[in-house]
């Protein structure tokens, strides 16, 4: 669509801007202020300069948490994206089955995050949980409170359960926007199933997939409530991800300065990654438009 240059559009933006600024800019400024001081209360505080940043950047626990976070985010993306595409291809397109499957698939997304943790806690316990009990009956000593491997696998499984629907629904909507004529043409050409996927469906999916990957990456990066309820970050700190380290430091230990410095580093990582994704999405849309015009 051709847009008109009009700076009065700012008036339409203004209410939204004020509200988001209230929730975003004031707290962000405060975090910056905290990060350069040792704050006991508003009147008792000492200027520390860059000390907290130096400390945080060299903190081995945090390095480990960052690495764990990336490992986790990449693992769940690697599982959820192909699985989500597969589910989307399998979902029925018409009739009451389509609605029913849609509602069932969406369900995990609508459950509060700590309840997701509780559901999986109940499901995986060795004594009262179906999954934990079954695995033990099959002879596997399954124990998420003692074995880091079990805890890690369970959290990945939980995340797959929780968030694959998002990718699946995004892809489903992408697939539905393909006109039937394309499939008919493919049938006349006797294109194989794989060729239909590769040359008709996948190109249509790239747009929604980038959005999906962006949202998934960001959400997995701030995962907090689910592992907190399920494993509490343990055993040891094997499932302590970034948000949890941060919350423990800020709320649990009341270390305002270090946790603020940590917040800012965390925020800068997010900012860089989301900028790269955003630029990629925008350039892709521009290319699509160019192709459309050509």
């Amino acid at each position, binding site marked *: 669509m051709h847009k008109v*240059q009009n700076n009065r559009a700012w008036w*339409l933006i203004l209410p939204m801007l004020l509200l*988001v600024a209230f929730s975003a800019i004031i707290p962000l400024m405060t975090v910056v202020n905290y990060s350069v001081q040792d704050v006991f209360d508003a009147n008792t505080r000492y200027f520390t300069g860059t000390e907290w940043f130096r400390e945080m950047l060299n903190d081995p626990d945090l390095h480990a948490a960052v690495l764990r976070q990336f490992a986790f985010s990449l693992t769940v993306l690697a599982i959820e994206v192909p699985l989500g595409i597969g*589910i989307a291809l*399998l979902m029925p397109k018409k009739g009451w089955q389509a609605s029913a499957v849609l509602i069932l698939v969406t*369900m995990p997304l609508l459950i509060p995050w700590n309840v997701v943790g509780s559901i999986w806690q109940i499901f995986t316990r060795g004594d009262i949980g179906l999954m934990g009990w079954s695995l033990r009956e099959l002879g596997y000593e399954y124990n998420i409170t003692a074995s880091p491997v079990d805890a890690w696998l369970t959290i990945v499984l939980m995340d797959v359960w929780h968030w694959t629907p998002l990718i699946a629904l995004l892809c489903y909507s992408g697939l539905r926007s393909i006109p039937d004529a394309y499939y008919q043409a493919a049938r006349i050409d006797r294109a194989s199933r794989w060729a239909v996927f590769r040359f008709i469906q996948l190109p249509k999916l790239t747009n929604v997939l980038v959005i999906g990957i962006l949202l998934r990456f960001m959400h997995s990066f701030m995962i*907090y409530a689910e592992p907190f309820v399920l494993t509490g970050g343990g055993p040891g700190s094997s499932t302590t991800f970034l948000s949890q380290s941060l919350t423990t430091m800020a709320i649990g230990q009341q270390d305002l300065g270090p946790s603020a410095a940590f917040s800012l580093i965390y925020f800068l990582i997010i900012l860089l990654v989301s900028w790269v994704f955003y630029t990629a999405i925008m350039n892709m849309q521009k290319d699509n438009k160019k192709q459309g015009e050509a």
Partner: protein
Amino acid sequence: MTDSIPATPEAVRKSAAAADARRRRKARPASRQWRRRGLMAAYIVFVLLPIYWLLNMSFQSNTEILGGLTLWPETFTLEHYAKIFTEPNWYMGYVNSITYVLMNMAITIVVALPAAYAFSRYHFIGDKHLFFWLLTNLMAPPAVFLLPYFQLYYTVGLFDTHIAVALAHCLFNIPLAVWILEGFMSGVPKEIDETAFIDGYSFPKFFVKIFIPMISSGIGVTLFFLFMFSWVELLLASTLTATNAQPIASVMTQTKGASGIDWGTLAAAGALTILPGIVVVYFVRHHIAKGFALGRT
């Protein structure tokens, strides 16, 4: 020598026919249909199994839960649900959650509609950067803002009120709403605006009378997403409240008593948090697919 590349026209024709037959045999639509259904059913079972287990627990007494594993409630009981519906701090948890979610939806949609219209129709100074800044808020981990939020709302005297949580959730819900609505609005041809203005409509009148009805399905889907993200978020909600506006999520932590966890009540409370989501998704089921692509397919 049947595997080698065919050289004579006769051989080419023959191998083409063979390939065709192979493909036709492979197609066998009926069996493939069943395989598809089977795989889909397997996934649905995977989705439903943990939820089934939650329901199963919620209908069992605590002695049965701890007594041994039973695949369905042998002595069916509603005691946990009865407890939730009779004890005020339990059912008020749900009321509080729904109150701030509805407040947030109202605030968000009112400010997001004009903003999304501006983004979809006009170029203005800083539009691209503003849009990106909005999206970064969608991605900002709530944990980063936890402490300043607490301080901020405490200072302005809103701590432990519903409106505090509703405002805090605007942080990620407004950007999301603007993003989705902008996608839907861009699908409405600009000629409609122009015709309305020529016909003498003022901007507010055009917006309310013509434009909003045109994107009503988009608004419905947006409201669904606002509900979803406000309903599932708990870190901010439980940090900004103490007793008066306590969301159900923090009430649920009370099930951890001195004598261990009250599994039955925890399961029943969890099961009840799933219900509102199912009700809401039922209303938007026809538009939800488009909504997930942010109106952009």
